[in-house]
């Protein structure tokens, strides 16, 4: 049991940190950030949670096993390179779709984005695997 103060602060910081991590991830293509730093932030949020409460609690919040998160992320990154196969282009060729936004603008969605999301999950999973395992070590 750690401090009330710390745990309370953590409880209030945890959601914004996760939101911030997604923000960093999604803006990464245009501004500083990206999947890597985003994943680190998300992982840090869970690490903070594990420090304040316990690794077991943090695992409960995450629900999935971090190693599965990693594997899924890696799979996503790998798969994002496959679509060009169907248009006879090289592996990892960026494929973009422009979506109209309700407010009138447009949004570019492309395979590099999915790649970055894959990176995000890998980093998240990796960091948590490390932190949780080290935290659980006797």
């Amino acid at each position, binding site marked *: 049991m*750690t*401090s009330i103060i710390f745990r309370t602060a953590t409880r209030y*910081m945890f959601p914004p940190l996760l939101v911030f991590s997604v923000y960093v991830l999604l803006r990464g293509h245009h501004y500083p950030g990206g999947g890597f730093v985003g994943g680190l932030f998300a992982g840090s949020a869970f690490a903070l949670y594990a420090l304040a409460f316990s690794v077991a609690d943090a695992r409960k919040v995450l629900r999935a096993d971090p190693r599965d998160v990693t594997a899924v992320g890696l799979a996503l990154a790998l798969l994002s390179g496959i679509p060009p196969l169907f248009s006879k282009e090289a592996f990892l060729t960026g494929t973009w779709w422009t979506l109209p936004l309700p407010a009138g603008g447009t949004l570019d969605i492309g395979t590099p984005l999915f790649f970055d999301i894959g990176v995000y999950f890998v980093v998240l999973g990796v960091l948590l695997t490390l932190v949780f395992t080290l935290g659980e070590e006797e």
Partner: protein
Amino acid sequence: MIRELLVAFFLLSGGALSLVAAAGVIRMPDLFTRMHAATKTGTVGVSAITIGMIIHFSEVTVTSRGILVIAFFLLTAPVAAHMIGRAAYRSGVQLWILTRIDEWKSHGKNEPDEEA
């Protein structure tokens, strides 16, 4: 012009406060007194600089992020100080010899250490 003056004011006071914090961290006699300097002055110093920056750019995104920086500092700095202070105290870091009173020691002695 006023904006520039404001920016300059906030930046300079931020810098000055940081210097003060630095001086405190160097000069204060024990951990706890040093923490006073580091926590308060450091936080105010960086907040001042953040405000200076907000005024300098006067953009929504910069402002929101600037506020975020300040908010985070105000939330985390004391918590961090608390965590270190308590850890240091419990692990037996000595108070300055001129410390007058230690009620925690006298009252809190019987309190079982949660993690022991």
